[in-house]
């Protein structure tokens, strides 16, 4: 058979790059700028695009290593499939199927990324507000059949005011569309609507129907990929505050206390969660806000082992382990680096949803025993199996083991007495404490996990403990805290000695815990020389030591070493200088301590100074000129100088600094060599070319540095040709540098120092304990509603008047009324307050407005916890679900402009009076005031008549009380009205009512102060109306003024021009008046005819008009009828449709929880 080959394919005419260049008929490169206008436009365009990409440079304070999990909030109206989506995503990421979603769920989604999913309860505005404040990414669920619903819009608007998080739209229920074309059009419509809400080109996902209770795997896979590569921009508020989304809470109150004092007592509550934002300060007593509960001081923070560590972090731990192994000499294999997540790395942590039924805590392990619907297990007498029996028997034990042995002594000899243990007294206190603690501990020391970053209890007791003198000191102990000589001994790497000498603080915790400390110590070993000394850093903060003592002790290393036992041998040491010096120091101490206010610092006596400063050698290197001089003295720049200038390299750069250190060391080595400079000089001729070059380079570098020193900072700061093209880049670089400095500095510190300086950094899993939390928080706890703890800055703890710019939301139906309660969400807080809306009258005064203007900003002032300017806020009138109609609830949005302790707001008050006696320019005015006292208050006030004559209040009249004399610039009329325009101060009501929705049993039903309208409606009060304020038709009486009468005497003297020309009344009849006209003949006939014709035509017109009106009426009636029929038909249609398709909605309105398990 003939072999059949594929026919030869001819090479295609390839469009090579070269050919492309010549498409225009000439070499495009040769005429690069062929169209300058076009090119300019292109450049303009590209720079526009680039410029639009820029954002205000902001520092991102999220730590690079081990960042906190990304909070993904799933938001949407009820029944849009939030739970299903979370379940599908969790299933996809961790291969776990969750039955019940309660509270935040943290999963590992990548090597360095974790996600915390929270479901935002659809029917709670409060939760929506809270979630919007903390979510990094919002999955906005939209029912494809219904489009955007009120909740969605509300959420978007809330999110916008609190710093827009990333929003991903997810459209569900798309399988319900029957025809493809409607699906397509509705998709498109949704997309565009979404774009207008979020931004042009925002991503909108489409999920089709549910399979096996989950969304299709392929679609979920895409979504999860999208999520896991998403980047986030730092948001201002979150970049300035620490916050935490509690994924677990426990009530630590002693159960006995509850039993004894009743359920009503305040509880001790622990919140658990990952820290986000900035570092949480480690000072106990720091106030934080728990949204929906209130402000509480932190009584204790503790860093716990990460329950859901990322593989990247695990790797770090492993690396550390391996290092350690290597040090010990054993070899280990480096594990293979994987590209994909291992199954064992796909962790899930959802304590509220209890995954897997086991839950571990610092001091307890909770085991979920069976389901509720199964019969009870662990019932004594009905055990099923060996294990249960064991447990129940444990429960049966009446006495603890210790109690069992109580009273049992040891008989050493058969005839001897029983020896009983004697309690060591000093332990008593500790044990007591342990007992108290132990009662709510469950099993103590069950787990010894590795902790990254030691958990330090920030109690002052701790510091005291730490300050208890170690055994080698036998000084008197004042108080119970006395600083301890810290022995820094890092010479050997022997672990046992290390642990023995670490702080007692460390000894409190497990040895395994502080590997980090070990490492830090080891790291420091190279730096610190072996010596015994007081640590000034600790001494400074020991409040029980007087400052002078503190300094003395610290300096003691050189002074008091010798004079340790002052009593005996001191005087023999007759070093006069030493002695005087010491007294000098003492004097100084006394003096300065008595008068620390003194500005001038302590100086030695003048004679001493003269002696000391005979030569300026000790500070020669501080003067530029002097060092130059000394430099010129040296023929060759020898290494001594190198040392002087060696450290003037780029100082900011840490790495370089380290290098510097090395360099310096090298230099020292060199120095010893260089003591033979002369030899060098002789040998110089023998240098090779390279060596000479090196030498020259070194010299050049030295000169450069010299130049830099002399030029100072200016050299770098205002350098126009620095490496950064734009200001933006420069700022970015500066920030990056600062961050780097932060990192290196913090890494250099020991863990406890770091804790003190930095606090608990974001990404650490902490347990925060609060005392005195209202019992309702625990009793009415519902995992469905997120618990958010936000840190507060010092300003946010103060209360005062907040002035902001505010605008009624255009979708809110009503304008807002001054002093009507408004629930404001500002910062972490939600609170009800009574705002006063104001405007400024050309910046001279702040005038109250009764209502917000329709479509423009006004100012609002309200009382509440302060928040720094530029913080946006939003307000709603009602948060309770039962009180809301279907309308858009966000009533106003705004931004804080200014804070103050009080503010001056006025409202206009017009007092009116009437003149009752008028002299020339003076008039007596009545009805303005009711007493002479009131008049006295306004003496000298400017008044004005309606007609515009200005005047002044002079004096109260004695007789009719409240009447007064006033002068005007002209004579006023009796009919005029006098107006006194005054400004009446308006007080802002100091009303602050935090929305404590989480304390309620029905969390969605928080009701605060009612709106004015609501109160009126409830109490059946009519809205008060001032009849004067009602708009009426203005009826003006025609006024007649008498003519001007000028006395003859005056008239006579007036110049001709000003003479009044008045015609005398005519006496004779005019010609026209005299004549009488009589019509006759033709004219009369014509007139009569015309009159008839006109009458007929008028009558006809009338008839026609009335007929037309009738017809019109008929027509309208007909139209109305058809309209009605149409409506009826439509209604029927709708009814039919919703009966078929809208079952879901009706069910959700009845019971939103019911829809969860659809």
């Amino acid at each position, binding site marked *: 058979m003939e072999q059949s080959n594929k026919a030869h394919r001819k090479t295609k005419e390839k469009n090579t790059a070269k050919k492309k260049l010549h498409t225009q008929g000439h070499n495009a490169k040769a005429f690069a700028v062929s169209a300058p206008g076009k090119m300019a436009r292109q450049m303009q365009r590209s720079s526009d695009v680039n410029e639009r990409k820029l954002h205000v440079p902001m520092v991102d304070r999220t730590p690079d290593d081990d960042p906190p999990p990304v909070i993904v909030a799933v938001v949407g109206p009820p029944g849009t499939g939030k739970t299903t989506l979370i379940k599908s995503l969790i299933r996809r990421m961790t291969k776990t199927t969750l039955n019940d979603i309660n509270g935040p769920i943290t999963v590992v989604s990548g090597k360095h990324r974790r996600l915390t999913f929270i479901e935002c309860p659809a029917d709670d505005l409060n939760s929506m507000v809270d979630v919007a404040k903390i979510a990094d990414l919002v999955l906005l669920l939209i029912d494809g059949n219904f489009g955007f619903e009120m909740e969605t819009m509300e959420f978007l608007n809330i999110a916008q005011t609190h710093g827009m998080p990333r929003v991903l739209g997810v459209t569900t229920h798309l399988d319900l569309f029957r025809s493809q074309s409607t699906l397509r059009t509705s998709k498109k419509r949704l997309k565009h609507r979404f774009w207008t809400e979020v931004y042009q080109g925002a991503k909108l996902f489409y999920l089709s129907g549910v399979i096996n209770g989950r969304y299709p795997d392929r679609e979920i896979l895409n979504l999860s990929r999208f999520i896991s590569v998403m980047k986030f921009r730092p948001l201002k508020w979150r970049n300035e505050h620490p916050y935490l989304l509690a994924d677990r809470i426990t009530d630590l109150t002693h159960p006995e206390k509850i039993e004894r004092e009743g359920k009503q007592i305040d509880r001790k509550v622990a919140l658990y969660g990952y820290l986000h934002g900035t570092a949480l300060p480690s000072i106990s007593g720091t106030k934080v806000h728990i949204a929906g509960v209130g402000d509480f001081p932190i009584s204790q923070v503790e860093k716990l082992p990460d329950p859901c560590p990322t593989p990247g972090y695990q790797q770090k731990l492993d690396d550390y382990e391996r290092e350690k192994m290597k040090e010990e000499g054993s070899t280990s294999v480096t594990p293979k680096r994987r590209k994909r997540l291992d199954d064992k790395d796909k962790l899930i942590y959802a304590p509220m949803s209890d995954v897997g039924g086991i839950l571990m805590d610092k001091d307890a392990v909770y085991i979920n025993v069976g389901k509720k619907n199964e019969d009870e297990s662990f019932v004594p007498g009905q055990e099923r199996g060996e294990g249960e029996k064991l447990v129940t028997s444990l429960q049966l034990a009446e006495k603890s083991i210790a109690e069992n042995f109580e009273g049992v002594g040891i008989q050493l000899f058969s005839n001897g007495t029983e020896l009983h243990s004697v309690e060591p007294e000093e332990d008593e206190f500790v044990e007591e404490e342990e007992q108290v603690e132990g009662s709510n501990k469950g099993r103590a020391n069950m787990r010894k996990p590795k902790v990254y970053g030691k958990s330090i209890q920030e109690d002052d007791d701790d510091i005291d403990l730490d300050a208890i003198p170690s055994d080698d000191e036998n000084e008197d102990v004042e108080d119970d805290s006395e600083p301890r000589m810290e022995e820094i001994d890092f010479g050997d790497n022997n672990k046992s000695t290390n642990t023995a000498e670490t702080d007692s603080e460390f000894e409190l915790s497990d040895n395994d815990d502080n590997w980090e400390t070990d490492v830090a110590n080891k790291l420091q070993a190279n730096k610190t020389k072996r010596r015994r000394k007081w640590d000034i850093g600790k001494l400074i903060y020991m409040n029980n030591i007087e400052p002078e003592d503190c300094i003395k002790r610290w300096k003691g290393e050189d002074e008091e070493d010798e004079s340790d036992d002052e009593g005996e041998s001191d005087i023999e040491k007759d070093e006069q200088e030493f002695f005087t010096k010491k007294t000098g120091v003492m004097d100084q101490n006394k003096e300065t301590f008595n008068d620390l206010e003194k500005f001038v*610092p302590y100086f030695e006596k003048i004679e001493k100074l003269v002696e000391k400063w005979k030569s300026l050698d000790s500070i020669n290197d*501080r003067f530029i000129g*002097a060092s130059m001089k000394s430099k010129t003295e040296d023929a060759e720049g020898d290494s001594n100088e190198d040392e002087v200038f060696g450290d003037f390299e780029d100082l900011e750069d840490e790495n370089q600094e380290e290098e510097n250190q090395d360099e310096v060391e090298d230099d020292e080595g060199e120095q010893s060599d260089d003591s033979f400079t002369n030899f060098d000089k002789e040998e110089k001729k023998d240098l090779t070319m390279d060596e000479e070059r090196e030498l020259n380079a070194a010299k050049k570098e030295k000169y450069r540095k010299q130049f830099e020193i*002399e030029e*100072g900072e200016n050299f770098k700061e205002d350098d126009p040709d620095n490496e950064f093209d734009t200001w933006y880049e420069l700022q970015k670089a500066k920030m990056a540098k600062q961050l780097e400095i932060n990192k290196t500095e913090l890494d250099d510190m020991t863990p406890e120092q770091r804790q003190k*300086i930095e606090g608990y950094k974001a990404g650490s899993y902490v347990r925060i304990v609060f005392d005195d939390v209202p019992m309702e928080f625990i009793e009415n706890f519902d995992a469905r509603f997120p618990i958010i703890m936000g840190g507060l800055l010092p300003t946010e703890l103060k209360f005062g008047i907040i002035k902001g710019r505010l605008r009624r939301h255009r979708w809110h139906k009503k304008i807002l009324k001054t002093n009507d309660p408004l629930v404001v969400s500002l910062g972490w807080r939600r609170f009800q307050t009574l705002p006063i809306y104001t405007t400024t009258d050309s910046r001279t005064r702040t005038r109250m407005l009764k209502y917000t203007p329709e479509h423009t900003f006004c100012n609002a002032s309200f009382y509440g916890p302060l928040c720094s300017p530029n913080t946006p806020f939003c307000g709603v009138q009602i948060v309770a679900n039962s009180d809301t109609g279907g309308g858009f609830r966000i009533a106003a949005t705004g931004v804080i402009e200014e804070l103050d302790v009080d503010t001056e707001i006025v409202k206009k008050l017009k007092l009116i009076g009437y003149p009752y006696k008028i002299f020339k320019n003076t008039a007596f005015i009545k009805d303005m005031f009711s007493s002479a006292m009131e008049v006295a208050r306004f003496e000298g006030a400017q008044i004005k008549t309606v007609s515009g004559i200005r005047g002044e209040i002079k004096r109260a009249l004695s007789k009719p009380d409240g009447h007064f004399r006033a002068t005007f610039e002209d004579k006023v009329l009796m009919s005029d009205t006098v107006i006194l325009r005054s400004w009446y101060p308006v007080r802002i009501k100091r009303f602050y009512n935090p929305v404590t929705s989480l304390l309620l049993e029905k969390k969605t039903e928080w009701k605060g102060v009612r709106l004015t309208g609501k109160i009126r409606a409830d109490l059946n009060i009519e809205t008060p109306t001032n009849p004067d304020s009602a708009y009426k038709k203005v009826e003006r009486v025609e006024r007649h003024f008498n003519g001007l009468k000028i006395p003859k005497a005056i008239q006579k003297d007036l110049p001709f021009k000003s003479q009044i020309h008045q015609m005398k009344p005519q006496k004779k009849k005019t010609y026209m008046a005299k004549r009488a006209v009589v019509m006759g003949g033709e004219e009369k006939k014509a007139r009569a005819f015309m009159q008839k014709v006109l009458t007929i035509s008028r009558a006809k017109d009338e008839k026609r008009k009335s007929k037309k009106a009738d017809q019109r009426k008929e027509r309208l009636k007909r139209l109305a009828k058809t309209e009605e029929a149409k409506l009826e038909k439509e209604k029927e249609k709708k009814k039919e449709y919703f009966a078929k398709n809208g079952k879901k909605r009706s069910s959700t309105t009845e019971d939103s929880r019911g829809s969860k398990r659809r």
Partner: protein
Amino acid sequence: MSSNKKSPYVTFQGSQNFRLRIVLSTLSGKPIKIEKIRSTDLNPGLKDFEISFLRLMESVTNGSQIEISYTGTTVIYRPGIIVGGSHTHNCPPSKPVGYFVEPLLYLAPFSKKKFSIVLRGITSSHHDAGVEAIKWGLLPILEKFGVRECALHTLKRGSPPLGGGEVHLVVDTLIAQPITIHELERPMISAIKGVSYSTRVSPSLVNRMIDGAKKVLKNVGCQVNITADVWRGENSGKSPGWGITLIGETKKGWCYFAEAIGDSGAIPEEVGEMVAYHLLEEIESSGAIGRTQLPLAITFMVIGKEDIGRLRIAKAEIDERFVVLLRDIKKIFGTEVLLKEVNDGSDHSDDYIVTVKGNGFTNANKKIA
């Protein structure tokens, strides 16, 4: 600490560091209570200048509440909002204007309105900051922290005891946060300048002081430039007096200074010499900044951004004042500083680096737009 957890005040005892405590409280917004002010003294309670200072604080803030106990030994201060504005303050004759200007420098950059305060009284004294010391010694430090437009104008000089001087403090820069600074080196001094001034005495005294100072400083190897400033007529206050202030300037903007005034009977040359020696001493015992500038710098570092700032100080600068300062800062702000020894192998290896993480303070008083 734990005992006064419930108490709404941060409590201090004694009269020491009075101004700084009030200033820190105002910056942090935390109310403080100072107890036992000279309680064992024959003349217990607040002194007239302290009362005057509290008045000044009241006028530059809005909503501050000051409660002074009957005996004057206890003060409760609830800070309001720093507003600034234009004020005139008459200082009591017991303290010079420098006593009042110094604390104002801490507050001025963080106020609502610009500071423009005229202070009347004595302009120089033995124990408190003189006008030149503030102008050339403290304002440059402010400048390093980003407060560029600040000035202290001497309208009239007034020597003790009668005074009659007048100074005008103008701070036009309102910043949200001080700049985070890093100074890891002892800066090099590029020039020494100074002012030698006199009121109502012979101008020759001024020149004699200059001579005395120059004699000491001739060997330092850099430029020494001392200005003579002789005040005559009605602007020279009510009493005769004279003094000298020397400043060591660096290219980087840091500076060191020393000052003194002459008593009647003192020899001008000796005063000049003494101040020169003090300057040398100050230079020797300072890292990047002098002892008198330290509180200002540390405070500004503490209230900076949430970044780490570093400052090199000499061992001699760690004294009681420093300890008291840090303790007060910790009490009010809760911020601790870290002292780290410098091991760069240079001559001054007993220097320390003060590492401070700013507490994220922002000037919330300023109005936007």
